[in-house]
Protein backbone atom coordinates (compact mmCIF):
# COMPACT_ATOMS: atom_id res chain seq x y z
CA UNK A 1 0.00 0.00 0.00
CA UNK A 2 1.01 3.64 -0.14
CA UNK A 3 4.03 4.67 1.84
CA UNK A 4 5.11 8.24 2.52
CA UNK A 5 8.80 7.57 1.80
CA UNK A 6 8.16 6.63 -1.81
CA UNK A 7 7.96 9.08 -4.69
CA UNK A 8 4.56 9.53 -6.36
CA UNK A 9 3.99 7.19 -9.26
CA UNK A 10 1.70 9.78 -10.87
CA UNK A 11 2.36 13.44 -10.35
CA UNK A 12 0.32 16.14 -12.09
CA UNK A 13 0.92 19.86 -11.79
CA UNK A 14 -1.52 22.41 -13.23
CA UNK A 15 -2.58 19.95 -15.84
CA UNK A 16 -4.75 21.45 -18.60
CA UNK A 17 -6.10 20.05 -21.83
CA UNK A 18 -7.81 22.14 -24.45
CA UNK A 19 -9.53 20.89 -27.55
CA UNK A 20 -10.44 22.83 -30.64
CA UNK A 21 -14.05 22.14 -31.58
CA UNK A 22 -14.51 24.09 -34.78
CA UNK A 23 -13.78 27.75 -34.06
CA UNK A 24 -14.15 27.39 -30.28
CA UNK A 25 -11.80 26.01 -27.67
CA UNK A 26 -13.02 23.58 -25.07
CA UNK A 27 -11.23 23.33 -21.74
CA UNK A 28 -11.57 19.67 -20.95
CA UNK A 29 -9.23 19.98 -17.99
CA UNK A 30 -8.06 23.13 -16.19
CA UNK A 31 -5.15 23.34 -13.80
CA UNK A 32 -5.57 19.96 -12.20
CA UNK A 33 -2.87 19.05 -9.69
CA UNK A 34 -2.59 15.85 -7.69
CA UNK A 35 -0.30 12.95 -7.07
CA UNK A 36 -0.86 9.25 -6.65
CA UNK A 37 1.44 7.14 -4.52
CA UNK A 38 2.43 3.62 -5.52
CA UNK A 39 -0.09 1.06 -4.33
CA UNK A 40 -2.99 3.49 -4.11
CA UNK A 41 -6.39 2.63 -5.54
CA UNK A 42 -8.03 5.78 -6.83
CA UNK A 43 -11.48 6.29 -8.25
CA UNK A 44 -12.06 9.30 -10.49
CA UNK A 45 -15.71 10.25 -10.43
CA UNK A 46 -17.83 13.02 -11.81
CA UNK A 47 -20.65 13.73 -14.22
CA UNK A 48 -20.43 12.92 -17.93
CA UNK A 49 -18.28 15.39 -19.83
CA UNK A 50 -16.52 16.51 -16.67
CA UNK A 51 -13.10 15.54 -17.97
CA UNK A 52 -12.56 12.18 -16.21
CA UNK A 53 -11.68 10.28 -19.37
CA UNK A 54 -9.46 13.11 -20.57
CA UNK A 55 -7.53 12.86 -17.32
CA UNK A 56 -7.26 9.08 -17.69
CA UNK A 57 -5.95 9.49 -21.26
CA UNK A 58 -3.29 11.87 -20.02
CA UNK A 59 -2.25 9.56 -17.19
CA UNK A 60 -2.15 6.70 -19.68
CA UNK A 61 0.20 8.60 -22.03
CA UNK A 62 -2.38 8.34 -24.77
CA UNK A 63 -2.64 12.10 -24.98
CA UNK A 64 -0.48 15.05 -24.00
CA UNK A 65 -1.54 18.02 -21.87
CA UNK A 66 -1.86 21.44 -23.41
CA UNK A 67 -0.06 22.86 -20.40
CA UNK A 68 1.19 21.73 -17.01
CA UNK A 69 3.43 18.83 -16.19
CA UNK A 70 2.81 15.16 -15.68
CA UNK A 71 5.27 12.61 -14.35
CA UNK A 72 4.44 8.93 -14.80
CA UNK A 73 6.57 6.40 -12.97
CA UNK A 74 9.21 9.09 -12.59
CA UNK A 75 9.25 10.10 -16.24
CA UNK A 76 8.31 13.63 -17.29
CA UNK A 77 5.93 13.17 -20.21
CA UNK A 78 6.38 16.73 -21.46
CA UNK A 79 7.94 16.79 -24.88
CA UNK A 80 8.09 13.02 -25.23
CA UNK A 81 7.85 11.77 -28.78
CA UNK A 82 5.23 9.24 -29.80
CA UNK A 83 7.75 6.41 -29.68
CA UNK A 84 8.80 7.33 -26.14
CA UNK A 85 5.19 7.68 -25.01
CA UNK A 86 4.44 4.27 -26.52
CA UNK A 87 7.33 2.71 -24.63
CA UNK A 88 6.24 4.34 -21.37
CA UNK A 89 2.67 3.18 -21.93
CA UNK A 90 3.82 -0.34 -22.79
CA UNK A 91 6.16 -0.71 -19.83
CA UNK A 92 4.38 1.14 -17.06
CA UNK A 93 0.67 1.20 -17.76
CA UNK A 94 -2.01 -1.42 -18.28
CA UNK A 95 -5.43 -0.49 -19.66
CA UNK A 96 -8.86 -1.93 -19.05
CA UNK A 97 -11.63 -0.61 -21.26
CA UNK A 98 -15.36 -0.47 -20.76
CA UNK A 99 -15.80 -2.31 -24.08
CA UNK A 100 -13.10 -4.90 -23.23
CA UNK A 101 -11.31 -4.44 -26.58
CA UNK A 102 -10.64 -8.13 -27.19
CA UNK A 103 -9.69 -9.29 -30.68
CA UNK A 104 -12.49 -11.60 -31.78
CA UNK A 105 -10.35 -13.95 -33.90
CA UNK A 106 -7.88 -14.66 -31.09
CA UNK A 107 -8.61 -16.98 -28.21
CA UNK A 108 -8.39 -15.89 -24.59
CA UNK A 109 -4.73 -16.88 -24.19
CA UNK A 110 -3.75 -15.14 -27.45
CA UNK A 111 -5.63 -12.00 -26.44
CA UNK A 112 -3.72 -11.94 -23.16
CA UNK A 113 -0.45 -12.39 -25.04
CA UNK A 114 -1.26 -9.71 -27.65
CA UNK A 115 0.66 -6.84 -25.95
CA UNK A 116 3.78 -8.99 -25.82
CA UNK A 117 3.89 -8.98 -29.63
CA UNK A 118 5.06 -5.41 -29.28
CA UNK A 119 7.15 -5.70 -26.13
CA UNK A 120 9.01 -8.75 -27.37
CA UNK A 121 8.52 -10.55 -24.03
CA UNK A 122 6.34 -13.46 -25.03
CA UNK A 123 5.69 -15.51 -21.94
CA UNK A 124 2.91 -18.02 -22.39
CA UNK A 125 3.54 -19.34 -18.87
CA UNK A 126 2.95 -15.89 -17.39
CA UNK A 127 -0.20 -15.49 -19.49
CA UNK A 128 -1.51 -18.79 -18.14
CA UNK A 129 -0.60 -17.73 -14.63
CA UNK A 130 -2.54 -14.49 -15.09
CA UNK A 131 -5.51 -16.39 -16.45
CA UNK A 132 -5.29 -18.60 -13.38
CA UNK A 133 -5.22 -15.45 -11.26
CA UNK A 134 -8.36 -14.04 -12.88
CA UNK A 135 -10.06 -17.45 -12.77
CA UNK A 136 -10.08 -18.12 -16.51
CA UNK A 137 -7.44 -20.80 -16.98
CA UNK A 138 -10.14 -23.21 -18.12
CA UNK A 139 -11.22 -20.73 -20.80
CA UNK A 140 -7.76 -20.20 -22.34
CA UNK A 141 -8.68 -21.69 -25.70
CA UNK A 142 -12.08 -20.07 -25.95
CA UNK A 143 -12.88 -17.19 -28.25
CA UNK A 144 -14.25 -13.94 -26.84
CA UNK A 145 -17.75 -14.59 -28.21
CA UNK A 146 -17.89 -17.71 -26.06
CA UNK A 147 -17.34 -15.73 -22.87
CA UNK A 148 -19.69 -13.83 -20.58
CA UNK A 149 -19.20 -10.09 -20.10
CA UNK A 150 -17.46 -10.65 -16.77
CA UNK A 151 -15.13 -13.21 -18.32
CA UNK A 152 -14.29 -10.87 -21.17
CA UNK A 153 -13.43 -8.11 -18.71
CA UNK A 154 -11.29 -10.48 -16.64
CA UNK A 155 -9.50 -11.49 -19.85
CA UNK A 156 -8.91 -7.79 -20.55
CA UNK A 157 -7.50 -7.37 -17.03
CA UNK A 158 -5.10 -10.30 -17.58
CA UNK A 159 -4.06 -8.70 -20.86
CA UNK A 160 -3.46 -5.37 -19.10
CA UNK A 161 -1.16 -7.13 -16.63
CA UNK A 162 0.89 -9.20 -19.07
CA UNK A 163 3.68 -6.62 -19.37
CA UNK A 164 3.85 -6.27 -15.55
CA UNK A 165 2.81 -2.60 -15.44
CA UNK A 166 3.08 -0.54 -12.27
CA UNK A 167 -0.18 1.28 -12.96
CA UNK A 168 -3.52 -0.22 -13.98
CA UNK A 169 -5.96 2.24 -15.56
CA UNK A 170 -9.59 1.31 -16.02
CA UNK A 171 -12.24 3.32 -17.83
CA UNK A 172 -15.71 2.39 -16.59
CA UNK A 173 -14.63 -1.25 -16.13
CA UNK A 174 -18.04 -2.33 -14.87
CA UNK A 175 -20.06 -0.20 -17.27
CA UNK A 176 -21.04 -3.13 -19.47
CA UNK A 177 -21.40 -5.73 -16.76
CA UNK A 178 -24.26 -6.98 -14.66
CA UNK A 179 -23.91 -6.32 -10.96
CA UNK A 180 -22.58 -9.79 -10.09
CA UNK A 181 -19.91 -9.66 -12.80
CA UNK A 182 -19.14 -6.06 -11.88
CA UNK A 183 -18.61 -7.08 -8.27
CA UNK A 184 -16.25 -9.86 -9.35
CA UNK A 185 -14.22 -7.44 -11.44
CA UNK A 186 -14.04 -4.90 -8.61
CA UNK A 187 -12.96 -7.63 -6.25
CA UNK A 188 -10.22 -8.51 -8.71
CA UNK A 189 -9.05 -4.88 -8.78
CA UNK A 190 -9.05 -4.84 -5.01
CA UNK A 191 -7.05 -8.03 -4.92
CA UNK A 192 -4.48 -6.70 -7.41
CA UNK A 193 -4.23 -3.47 -5.46
CA UNK A 194 -3.64 -5.35 -2.26
CA UNK A 195 -0.58 -6.89 -3.92
CA UNK A 196 0.88 -3.43 -4.55
CA UNK A 197 -0.49 -2.52 -7.98
CA UNK A 198 -1.51 1.11 -8.38
CA UNK A 199 -5.08 1.23 -9.72
CA UNK A 200 -6.84 4.27 -11.15
CA UNK A 201 -10.38 3.79 -12.32
CA UNK A 202 -12.86 6.15 -13.86
CA UNK A 203 -16.40 5.28 -12.91
CA UNK A 204 -19.96 6.43 -12.54
CA UNK A 205 -20.67 3.46 -10.36
CA UNK A 206 -20.91 4.33 -6.66
CA UNK A 207 -20.06 0.83 -5.48
CA UNK A 208 -17.03 0.81 -7.78
CA UNK A 209 -15.90 4.14 -6.38
CA UNK A 210 -16.47 2.84 -2.87
CA UNK A 211 -13.94 0.03 -3.36
CA UNK A 212 -11.18 2.61 -3.92
CA UNK A 213 -9.15 4.05 -1.08
CA UNK A 214 -9.33 7.48 -2.64
CA UNK A 215 -11.98 9.37 -4.55
CA UNK A 216 -11.16 12.28 -6.85
CA UNK A 217 -14.12 14.21 -8.13
CA UNK A 218 -13.85 16.08 -11.40
CA UNK A 219 -16.41 18.66 -12.47
CA UNK A 220 -16.19 21.05 -15.39
CA UNK A 221 -12.59 20.06 -15.99
CA UNK A 222 -11.47 20.83 -12.47
CA UNK A 223 -10.57 18.68 -9.50
CA UNK A 224 -13.24 19.68 -7.01
CA UNK A 225 -12.71 17.04 -4.34
CA UNK A 226 -9.96 14.62 -3.39
CA UNK A 227 -10.94 12.40 -0.49
CA UNK A 228 -9.08 9.45 0.97
CA UNK A 229 -11.69 7.01 2.22
Amino acid at each position, binding site marked *: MATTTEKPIIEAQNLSREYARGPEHVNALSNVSFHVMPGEMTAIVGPSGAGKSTL*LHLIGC*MDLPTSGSLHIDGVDTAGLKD*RQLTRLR*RDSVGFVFQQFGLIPTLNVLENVLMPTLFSGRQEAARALQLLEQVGLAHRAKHRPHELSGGEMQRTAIARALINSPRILLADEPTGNLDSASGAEVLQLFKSLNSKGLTVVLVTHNESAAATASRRMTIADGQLVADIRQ
Partner: protein
Amino acid sequence: MNRLMLVFNSLLRRRMRSSVTVLGVAIGSAALFSMLSFEKGYQDGIRAELDHLGAHVLVAPKGCPYDAASMALHGASWPCYLKEEYLQRVRSTGGVATVAPLLMNAVYSTQSSTPTVYVGADSQILDLKRDWRIDGEFPQDSGSCLLGSSVAHSLNATVGSSVQLPGIGLDDATKPPMVHVSGIIRSTGQSDDTFVYLPLDRAQALFKRPHQLTHMLVRLKDPNMLERVVSDLRGCDAGMDMNVVPVAHVFRSIQNLVNTTRMLLACVAFAGLFAACAGVSNAIMMSVTERTREIGVMRAAGASRGDVFGLVLAETGITTTVGAVIGMLLAMASGPAVEAWIRSRLPFSPNGALIKPDPGLMGLCVLVSVLTGLVSGMAPAIRASRISPVQAMRDSEVM
Protein backbone atom coordinates in the same frame (compact mmCIF):
# COMPACT_ATOMS: atom_id res chain seq x y z
CA MET B 1 1.52 -16.37 -31.25
CA ASN B 2 3.39 -14.02 -33.56
CA ARG B 3 2.62 -10.97 -35.65
CA LEU B 4 2.18 -12.99 -38.83
CA MET B 5 -0.55 -14.98 -37.16
CA LEU B 6 -2.25 -11.73 -36.18
CA VAL B 7 -2.08 -10.60 -39.80
CA PHE B 8 -3.49 -13.88 -41.11
CA ASN B 9 -6.24 -13.68 -38.53
CA SER B 10 -7.21 -10.25 -39.78
CA LEU B 11 -7.34 -11.46 -43.37
CA LEU B 12 -9.25 -14.64 -42.58
CA ARG B 13 -11.79 -12.74 -40.53
CA ARG B 14 -13.32 -11.40 -43.74
CA ARG B 15 -12.81 -14.35 -46.01
CA MET B 16 -15.07 -13.28 -48.84
CA ARG B 17 -13.54 -9.82 -49.08
CA SER B 18 -10.02 -11.17 -48.84
CA SER B 19 -10.76 -13.82 -51.48
CA VAL B 20 -12.20 -11.29 -53.92
CA THR B 21 -9.22 -9.00 -53.35
CA VAL B 22 -6.77 -11.85 -53.90
CA LEU B 23 -8.66 -12.84 -57.05
CA GLY B 24 -8.40 -9.30 -58.37
CA VAL B 25 -4.64 -9.30 -57.87
CA ALA B 26 -4.44 -12.77 -59.42
CA ILE B 27 -6.24 -11.63 -62.56
CA GLY B 28 -4.14 -8.46 -62.80
CA SER B 29 -0.83 -10.27 -62.39
CA ALA B 30 -1.93 -13.08 -64.71
CA ALA B 31 -2.72 -10.50 -67.38
CA LEU B 32 0.65 -8.88 -66.84
CA PHE B 33 2.51 -12.18 -67.08
CA SER B 34 0.55 -13.29 -70.15
CA MET B 35 1.30 -10.02 -71.87
CA LEU B 36 5.01 -9.99 -71.07
CA SER B 37 5.37 -13.70 -71.79
CA PHE B 38 3.55 -13.33 -75.08
CA GLU B 39 5.71 -10.39 -76.07
CA LYS B 40 8.90 -12.30 -75.27
CA GLY B 41 7.63 -15.47 -76.94
CA TYR B 42 6.48 -13.50 -79.96
CA GLN B 43 9.83 -11.79 -80.48
CA ASP B 44 11.75 -15.00 -79.89
CA GLY B 45 9.38 -16.91 -82.18
CA ILE B 46 9.65 -14.47 -85.08
CA ARG B 47 13.41 -14.28 -84.72
CA ALA B 48 13.66 -18.08 -84.65
CA GLU B 49 11.42 -18.47 -87.71
CA LEU B 50 13.31 -15.90 -89.73
CA ASP B 51 16.64 -17.34 -88.63
CA HIS B 52 15.39 -20.77 -89.60
CA LEU B 53 14.47 -19.46 -93.03
CA GLY B 54 18.22 -19.22 -93.55
CA ALA B 55 17.93 -16.35 -95.98
CA HIS B 56 18.86 -12.69 -95.87
CA VAL B 57 16.47 -11.71 -98.63
CA LEU B 58 13.10 -13.02 -99.74
CA VAL B 59 12.23 -12.49 -103.39
CA ALA B 60 8.50 -12.83 -104.00
CA PRO B 61 5.91 -11.72 -106.54
CA LYS B 62 4.64 -8.17 -106.27
CA GLY B 63 2.21 -7.68 -103.43
CA CYS B 64 2.26 -7.32 -99.68
CA PRO B 65 5.73 -8.27 -98.39
CA TYR B 66 4.32 -9.39 -95.02
CA ASP B 67 1.84 -11.73 -96.66
CA ALA B 68 4.71 -13.10 -98.70
CA ALA B 69 6.82 -13.56 -95.57
CA SER B 70 3.95 -15.21 -93.76
CA MET B 71 3.27 -17.58 -96.65
CA ALA B 72 6.94 -18.43 -97.05
CA LEU B 73 7.25 -19.15 -93.33
CA HIS B 74 4.02 -20.99 -92.65
CA GLY B 75 3.19 -22.43 -96.04
CA ALA B 76 0.25 -21.56 -98.30
CA SER B 77 -0.98 -21.45 -101.87
CA TRP B 78 0.36 -18.32 -103.45
CA PRO B 79 -1.91 -16.07 -105.50
CA CYS B 80 0.76 -15.11 -108.05
CA TYR B 81 4.08 -16.35 -109.34
CA LEU B 82 7.55 -15.37 -110.46
CA LYS B 83 9.06 -16.39 -113.76
CA GLU B 84 11.80 -18.97 -113.32
CA GLU B 85 14.00 -16.96 -115.69
CA TYR B 86 14.43 -14.37 -112.93
CA LEU B 87 16.42 -16.97 -111.04
CA GLN B 88 19.50 -16.47 -113.22
CA ARG B 89 19.18 -12.71 -112.89
CA VAL B 90 19.15 -12.97 -109.10
CA ARG B 91 21.97 -15.49 -109.04
CA SER B 92 24.16 -13.25 -111.15
CA THR B 93 23.70 -10.25 -108.84
CA GLY B 94 26.90 -9.31 -107.05
CA GLY B 95 27.10 -10.30 -103.39
CA VAL B 96 24.62 -13.16 -103.72
CA ALA B 97 25.98 -16.45 -102.38
CA THR B 98 23.03 -18.81 -102.77
CA VAL B 99 19.58 -18.61 -104.27
CA ALA B 100 17.00 -21.30 -103.55
CA PRO B 101 14.06 -21.25 -106.00
CA LEU B 102 10.80 -22.51 -104.52
CA LEU B 103 7.33 -23.35 -105.68
CA MET B 104 4.90 -23.74 -102.81
CA ASN B 105 1.35 -25.03 -102.88
CA ALA B 106 -1.08 -26.05 -100.15
CA VAL B 107 -3.38 -28.94 -101.01
CA TYR B 108 -6.41 -30.08 -99.06
CA SER B 109 -7.18 -33.76 -98.78
CA THR B 110 -10.18 -35.63 -97.51
CA GLN B 111 -8.13 -37.20 -94.70
CA SER B 112 -7.26 -33.96 -92.92
CA SER B 113 -8.80 -30.57 -92.19
CA THR B 114 -5.42 -28.88 -92.59
CA PRO B 115 -3.74 -28.65 -95.97
CA THR B 116 -0.54 -30.40 -96.88
CA VAL B 117 2.07 -27.90 -97.99
CA TYR B 118 4.18 -29.01 -100.94
CA VAL B 119 7.41 -27.19 -101.67
CA GLY B 120 9.26 -27.67 -104.89
CA ALA B 121 12.96 -26.98 -104.39
CA ASP B 122 16.39 -27.87 -105.67
CA SER B 123 19.40 -28.84 -103.61
CA GLN B 124 20.37 -25.17 -103.18
CA ILE B 125 17.98 -25.06 -100.29
CA LEU B 126 20.40 -27.22 -98.30
CA ASP B 127 22.82 -24.29 -98.32
CA LEU B 128 20.21 -22.19 -96.58
CA LYS B 129 18.70 -24.73 -94.22
CA ARG B 130 21.95 -25.48 -92.48
CA ASP B 131 20.24 -26.56 -89.28
CA TRP B 132 18.37 -29.37 -91.03
CA ARG B 133 19.33 -32.86 -89.97
CA ILE B 134 18.18 -35.25 -92.68
CA ASP B 135 17.84 -38.98 -92.32
CA GLY B 136 18.46 -40.11 -95.90
CA GLU B 137 19.05 -37.57 -98.62
CA PHE B 138 17.51 -34.76 -100.62
CA PRO B 139 15.41 -36.12 -103.55
CA GLN B 140 17.60 -36.81 -106.53
CA ASP B 141 14.82 -37.71 -108.98
CA SER B 142 11.26 -36.76 -109.71
CA GLY B 143 9.88 -39.89 -108.06
CA SER B 144 11.27 -39.00 -104.63
CA CYS B 145 10.37 -36.65 -101.83
CA LEU B 146 11.74 -35.28 -98.57
CA LEU B 147 9.28 -35.23 -95.69
CA GLY B 148 9.06 -33.02 -92.64
CA SER B 149 9.03 -35.02 -89.42
CA SER B 150 5.33 -34.40 -88.65
CA VAL B 151 4.24 -35.39 -92.14
CA ALA B 152 6.41 -38.51 -92.00
CA HIS B 153 4.87 -39.41 -88.69
CA SER B 154 1.30 -38.91 -89.91
CA LEU B 155 2.00 -41.00 -93.05
CA ASN B 156 3.91 -43.65 -91.08
CA ALA B 157 6.71 -43.11 -93.58
CA THR B 158 10.29 -44.24 -93.17
CA VAL B 159 13.31 -43.52 -95.31
CA GLY B 160 13.15 -45.77 -98.34
CA SER B 161 9.46 -46.41 -98.06
CA SER B 162 6.86 -45.35 -100.61
CA VAL B 163 3.94 -43.13 -99.69
CA GLN B 164 0.90 -41.73 -101.34
CA LEU B 165 1.06 -37.97 -101.34
CA PRO B 166 -1.91 -36.50 -99.43
CA GLY B 167 -4.39 -34.59 -101.55
CA ILE B 168 -2.83 -35.52 -104.88
CA GLY B 169 -5.37 -37.18 -107.19
CA LEU B 170 -4.90 -40.84 -108.02
CA ASP B 171 -6.77 -40.61 -111.30
CA ASP B 172 -4.11 -38.57 -113.05
CA ALA B 173 -2.17 -41.04 -115.22
CA THR B 174 0.82 -38.71 -115.59
CA LYS B 175 1.49 -38.69 -111.90
CA PRO B 176 2.41 -41.90 -110.14
CA PRO B 177 0.31 -42.29 -106.99
CA MET B 178 3.23 -43.37 -104.84
CA VAL B 179 6.55 -41.60 -104.26
CA HIS B 180 9.75 -42.82 -102.76
CA VAL B 181 10.77 -41.21 -99.45
CA SER B 182 14.40 -40.34 -99.98
CA GLY B 183 14.78 -38.53 -96.70
CA ILE B 184 13.07 -37.27 -93.55
CA ILE B 185 13.97 -33.98 -91.87
CA ARG B 186 14.37 -34.39 -88.14
CA SER B 187 12.05 -32.20 -86.09
CA THR B 188 12.92 -28.50 -86.36
CA GLY B 189 10.05 -27.15 -84.30
CA GLN B 190 9.21 -24.98 -87.31
CA SER B 191 6.85 -25.19 -90.28
CA ASP B 192 9.32 -27.38 -92.14
CA ASP B 193 8.08 -30.27 -90.02
CA THR B 194 4.77 -30.09 -91.87
CA PHE B 195 6.14 -29.59 -95.42
CA VAL B 196 6.63 -32.13 -98.20
CA TYR B 197 9.67 -31.24 -100.34
CA LEU B 198 9.66 -32.35 -103.95
CA PRO B 199 12.18 -31.70 -106.71
CA LEU B 200 11.35 -28.33 -108.24
CA ASP B 201 10.53 -29.65 -111.74
CA ARG B 202 8.32 -32.34 -110.21
CA ALA B 203 6.36 -29.78 -108.23
CA GLN B 204 6.04 -27.48 -111.26
CA ALA B 205 4.61 -30.36 -113.27
CA LEU B 206 2.38 -31.58 -110.46
CA PHE B 207 0.79 -28.17 -109.90
CA LYS B 208 0.84 -27.17 -113.56
CA ARG B 209 3.18 -24.25 -113.02
CA PRO B 210 5.94 -24.91 -115.49
CA HIS B 211 8.86 -22.47 -115.25
CA GLN B 212 7.20 -20.66 -112.42
CA LEU B 213 8.23 -20.01 -108.83
CA THR B 214 6.41 -18.69 -105.82
CA HIS B 215 9.49 -17.21 -104.19
CA MET B 216 13.24 -17.33 -103.88
CA LEU B 217 15.33 -17.37 -100.73
CA VAL B 218 18.59 -15.49 -101.11
CA ARG B 219 21.65 -15.82 -98.90
CA LEU B 220 24.36 -13.18 -99.18
CA LYS B 221 28.09 -13.61 -99.07
CA ASP B 222 28.21 -10.86 -96.48
CA PRO B 223 25.09 -9.64 -94.60
CA ASN B 224 26.64 -6.15 -94.51
CA MET B 225 26.10 -5.97 -98.27
CA LEU B 226 22.33 -6.22 -97.79
CA GLU B 227 21.41 -2.69 -98.78
CA ARG B 228 23.50 -2.76 -101.93
CA VAL B 229 22.26 -6.20 -103.04
CA VAL B 230 18.65 -5.24 -102.41
CA SER B 231 19.17 -2.06 -104.38
CA ASP B 232 20.72 -3.98 -107.27
CA LEU B 233 17.91 -6.53 -107.29
CA ARG B 234 15.26 -3.85 -107.30
CA GLY B 235 17.05 -2.00 -110.07
CA CYS B 236 17.52 -4.97 -112.39
CA ASP B 237 15.33 -5.78 -115.45
CA ALA B 238 13.17 -8.15 -113.42
CA GLY B 239 12.97 -5.74 -110.51
CA MET B 240 9.60 -4.39 -111.60
CA ASP B 241 8.04 -7.83 -111.22
CA MET B 242 9.76 -8.85 -108.01
CA ASN B 243 9.21 -7.91 -104.45
CA VAL B 244 12.66 -7.85 -102.86
CA VAL B 245 12.17 -8.12 -99.13
CA PRO B 246 15.10 -8.02 -96.68
CA VAL B 247 14.26 -10.51 -93.94
CA ALA B 248 15.60 -8.19 -91.22
CA HIS B 249 13.19 -5.53 -92.45
CA VAL B 250 10.37 -8.05 -92.29
CA PHE B 251 11.22 -8.66 -88.64
CA ARG B 252 11.27 -4.96 -87.85
CA SER B 253 8.15 -4.25 -89.86
CA ILE B 254 6.19 -7.07 -88.27
CA GLN B 255 7.32 -5.79 -84.88
CA ASN B 256 6.08 -2.33 -85.81
CA LEU B 257 2.80 -3.72 -87.11
CA VAL B 258 2.03 -5.49 -83.87
CA ASN B 259 3.42 -2.78 -81.61
CA THR B 260 0.11 -0.99 -81.45
CA THR B 261 -1.67 -4.15 -80.45
CA ARG B 262 1.00 -4.99 -77.94
CA MET B 263 0.87 -1.51 -76.45
CA LEU B 264 -2.87 -1.77 -76.12
CA LEU B 265 -2.60 -5.15 -74.45
CA ALA B 266 0.16 -3.88 -72.17
CA CYS B 267 -2.02 -0.93 -71.16
CA VAL B 268 -4.90 -3.28 -70.42
CA ALA B 269 -2.61 -5.55 -68.38
CA PHE B 270 -1.16 -2.69 -66.35
CA ALA B 271 -4.55 -1.05 -65.94
CA GLY B 272 -5.87 -4.38 -64.67
CA LEU B 273 -3.02 -4.67 -62.20
CA PHE B 274 -3.45 -1.11 -60.98
CA ALA B 275 -7.21 -1.61 -60.66
CA ALA B 276 -6.54 -4.74 -58.63
CA CYS B 277 -4.13 -2.84 -56.41
CA ALA B 278 -6.68 -0.07 -55.97
CA GLY B 279 -9.04 -2.83 -54.88
CA VAL B 280 -6.45 -4.04 -52.39
CA SER B 281 -6.01 -0.52 -51.06
CA ASN B 282 -9.76 -0.10 -50.72
CA ALA B 283 -10.24 -3.46 -49.02
CA ILE B 284 -7.44 -2.85 -46.53
CA MET B 285 -8.71 0.69 -45.92
CA MET B 286 -12.17 -0.70 -45.12
CA SER B 287 -10.62 -3.27 -42.84
CA VAL B 288 -8.64 -0.58 -41.03
CA THR B 289 -11.74 1.55 -40.60
CA GLU B 290 -13.67 -1.39 -39.20
CA ARG B 291 -10.85 -2.21 -36.80
CA THR B 292 -10.24 1.33 -35.56
CA ARG B 293 -11.07 0.39 -31.97
CA GLU B 294 -9.01 -2.78 -32.18
CA ILE B 295 -6.01 -0.89 -33.53
CA GLY B 296 -6.52 1.69 -30.80
CA VAL B 297 -6.40 -1.10 -28.22
CA MET B 298 -3.14 -2.34 -29.73
CA ARG B 299 -1.71 1.17 -29.55
CA ALA B 300 -2.85 1.43 -25.93
CA ALA B 301 -1.24 -1.95 -25.25
CA GLY B 302 2.14 -0.78 -26.50
CA ALA B 303 2.09 -1.04 -30.28
CA SER B 304 4.03 1.80 -31.85
CA ARG B 305 2.94 3.56 -35.02
CA GLY B 306 5.59 1.56 -36.83
CA ASP B 307 4.20 -1.69 -35.44
CA VAL B 308 0.70 -0.88 -36.69
CA PHE B 309 2.05 0.34 -40.02
CA GLY B 310 3.97 -2.91 -40.40
CA LEU B 311 0.97 -5.08 -39.53
CA VAL B 312 -1.28 -3.40 -42.07
CA LEU B 313 1.39 -3.37 -44.75
CA ALA B 314 2.00 -7.05 -44.09
CA GLU B 315 -1.70 -7.68 -44.75
CA THR B 316 -1.27 -5.95 -48.11
CA GLY B 317 1.92 -7.86 -48.79
CA ILE B 318 0.35 -11.23 -48.05
CA THR B 319 -2.74 -10.41 -50.09
CA THR B 320 -0.74 -9.35 -53.13
CA THR B 321 1.81 -12.15 -52.84
CA VAL B 322 -0.85 -14.83 -52.63
CA GLY B 323 -2.77 -13.12 -55.44
CA ALA B 324 0.31 -12.86 -57.64
CA VAL B 325 1.27 -16.52 -57.13
CA ILE B 326 -2.27 -17.63 -57.92
CA GLY B 327 -2.12 -15.28 -60.89
CA MET B 328 0.93 -17.11 -62.26
CA LEU B 329 -0.90 -20.43 -61.97
CA LEU B 330 -3.93 -18.85 -63.60
CA ALA B 331 -1.78 -17.50 -66.42
CA MET B 332 -0.32 -20.93 -67.11
CA ALA B 333 -3.74 -22.58 -66.98
CA SER B 334 -5.32 -20.01 -69.29
CA GLY B 335 -2.21 -19.60 -71.45
CA PRO B 336 -3.43 -21.55 -74.51
CA ALA B 337 -6.78 -19.75 -74.58
CA VAL B 338 -5.24 -16.31 -74.06
CA GLU B 339 -2.62 -17.06 -76.71
CA ALA B 340 -5.25 -18.13 -79.20
CA TRP B 341 -7.24 -14.98 -78.50
CA ILE B 342 -4.24 -12.69 -78.95
CA ARG B 343 -3.11 -14.56 -82.06
CA SER B 344 -6.51 -13.97 -83.61
CA ARG B 345 -5.94 -10.23 -83.26
CA LEU B 346 -2.43 -10.07 -84.66
CA PRO B 347 -1.62 -9.87 -88.35
CA PHE B 348 1.27 -12.29 -88.07
CA SER B 349 2.19 -14.84 -85.45
CA PRO B 350 5.05 -17.30 -85.31
CA ASN B 351 4.47 -20.99 -84.68
CA GLY B 352 4.90 -22.69 -81.32
CA ALA B 353 3.73 -21.84 -77.82
CA LEU B 354 4.21 -18.16 -77.08
CA ILE B 355 3.10 -18.12 -73.44
CA LYS B 356 5.52 -20.42 -71.68
CA PRO B 357 6.53 -20.98 -68.05
CA ASP B 358 9.48 -18.71 -67.44
CA PRO B 359 10.65 -18.65 -63.81
CA GLY B 360 12.51 -15.37 -64.28
CA LEU B 361 9.53 -13.62 -65.84
CA MET B 362 7.17 -15.14 -63.27
CA GLY B 363 9.39 -13.89 -60.47
CA LEU B 364 9.46 -10.45 -62.05
CA CYS B 365 5.65 -10.35 -62.37
CA VAL B 366 5.20 -11.47 -58.75
CA LEU B 367 7.70 -8.81 -57.67
CA VAL B 368 5.99 -6.07 -59.70
CA SER B 369 2.58 -7.11 -58.37
CA VAL B 370 3.77 -7.21 -54.77
CA LEU B 371 5.61 -3.89 -55.03
CA THR B 372 2.63 -2.23 -56.70
CA GLY B 373 0.41 -3.71 -54.03
CA LEU B 374 2.68 -2.50 -51.25
CA VAL B 375 2.67 1.01 -52.69
CA SER B 376 -1.13 0.91 -52.81
CA GLY B 377 -1.16 -0.39 -49.24
CA MET B 378 0.79 2.59 -47.95
CA ALA B 379 -2.27 4.81 -47.59
CA PRO B 380 -4.24 2.42 -45.36
CA ALA B 381 -1.09 1.56 -43.42
CA ILE B 382 -0.34 5.23 -42.75
CA ARG B 383 -3.94 5.84 -41.81
CA ALA B 384 -3.88 2.90 -39.40
CA SER B 385 -0.64 4.07 -37.82
CA ARG B 386 -2.25 7.43 -37.07
CA ILE B 387 -5.12 5.92 -35.13
CA SER B 388 -4.90 7.24 -31.60
CA PRO B 389 -5.22 4.87 -28.66
CA VAL B 390 -7.82 7.29 -27.33
CA GLN B 391 -10.14 6.00 -30.04
CA ALA B 392 -10.03 2.61 -28.35
CA MET B 393 -11.89 4.14 -25.45
CA ARG B 394 -14.32 6.19 -27.48
CA ASP B 395 -15.77 3.62 -29.86
CA SER B 396 -18.84 1.84 -28.73
CA GLU B 397 -18.71 -1.55 -30.43
CA VAL B 398 -18.82 -4.28 -27.80
CA MET B 399 -16.69 -7.39 -27.74
